[in-house]
């Protein structure tokens, strides 16, 4: 069925009977929480998938076999960098806007 994006109830009459959530959290761009940003060195990457496996925020995408950080959602915990056996990921400070 798939879930809905952006739902707003302007009138109480439109609300379901009880707080039954139909929407997806994809509307929350948690990338904004990040202070440290993972940078992947694709030259060092051996495509083992460990970074994908250990990401609590489901924010490592696999594109053409290689990992890619989904910066819209990555909170910057650094597990990927810590667990990479090939030191292919480094954490750098987010630049202030």
């Amino acid at each position, binding site marked *: 069925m798939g879930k809905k994006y952006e739902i707003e109830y302007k009138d109480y009459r439109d609300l379901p009977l009880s707080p039954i959530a139909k929407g*997806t959290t994809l509307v929350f761009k948690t990338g904004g929480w990040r202070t440290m940003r993972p940078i992947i060195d694709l030259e060092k990457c051996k495509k083992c998938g460990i970074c994908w496996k250990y990401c609590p925020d489901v924010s490592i995408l696999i594109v053409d076999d290689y990992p890619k950080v989904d910066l819209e959602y990555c909170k910057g915990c650094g597990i990927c960098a810590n667990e990479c056996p090939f030191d292919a990921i480094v954490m750098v400070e987010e630049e202030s806007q």
Partner: protein
Amino acid sequence: MKTTIPEQELMDKGHMACLGCGGALAMRYLLKALGKNSMFAIPACCWAVIPGVFPYSCMEVPLQYVAFEATGAAISGMEAALKAKGKKEGVTVVGWAGDGGTLDIGIQALSGAVERGHDVKYVCYDNEAYMNTGIQRSSATPKGAWTTTTPVGKTKFWKQTNKKNIVEIMVAHDIPYTCTASVAYPEDLIKKAEKMKDIKGPCYMHIYAPCPTGWKYPPEKTIELSRLATETCIFPIYEVTYGKYKLNKNIRDEKKKPVIDYLKTQGRFRNLDEETVQSLQMYVDNEWNKLKKKIECFGEDK
């Protein structure tokens, strides 16, 4: 990419878990294993908040939030209703609760649910304190740990007693399957979850799920620290299938790391004195030896 981990993601991005949350990883793995034909009950715990505020949820499976102590009863009711409606076949009913909701306030309902033999899977993600309310001690908090209700200042007011052994309590219920798992070993966790899914009857899984916020360690260390917990034998990875014990991560004596290696990674153990560290080491050794004896006596191949 070489991995046995299912690609499907049933936990959406954008959830509200802290950076490096072990509990979020645990859920991600469990959902991968159980698939979309599962139905959850979640009591008060971090996971009452992680899925997000109404009208949004990161869960791509049906979920009901329940009262703190009610998880066991809620999954019993779900299972009974699915049976009454002829919809139980192929659907996995899951109770997902933290350590407080399992070892403390929810233990009665959990005990009742598994004793009645409902076809339900109860999964406890253990972060060793009431984290959602701001790090108060639970019966899963290990001896020596700082929490906001076992503060450490001039006095050594840390948690005075050892962690309650819920896994053996569940084994004593004589249910088909009880196991431990860790976010450090997702392949093992997923294999066990798949096994639970196939077993008809009550199953219990206890997942080690570190909390950087409450344990006072940097978020990138979640997996490293989880691995250490098993390598020091503080959190052994094993399963009990129809009464038969099996160790899934054997730690050979020469590879067994001292408890202090684990303790020093976390701020919550920062002020421990030598005496307590030693008593913890003795406790862990004793529990580990007991477990090895059980495997010797009641192992799968015996």
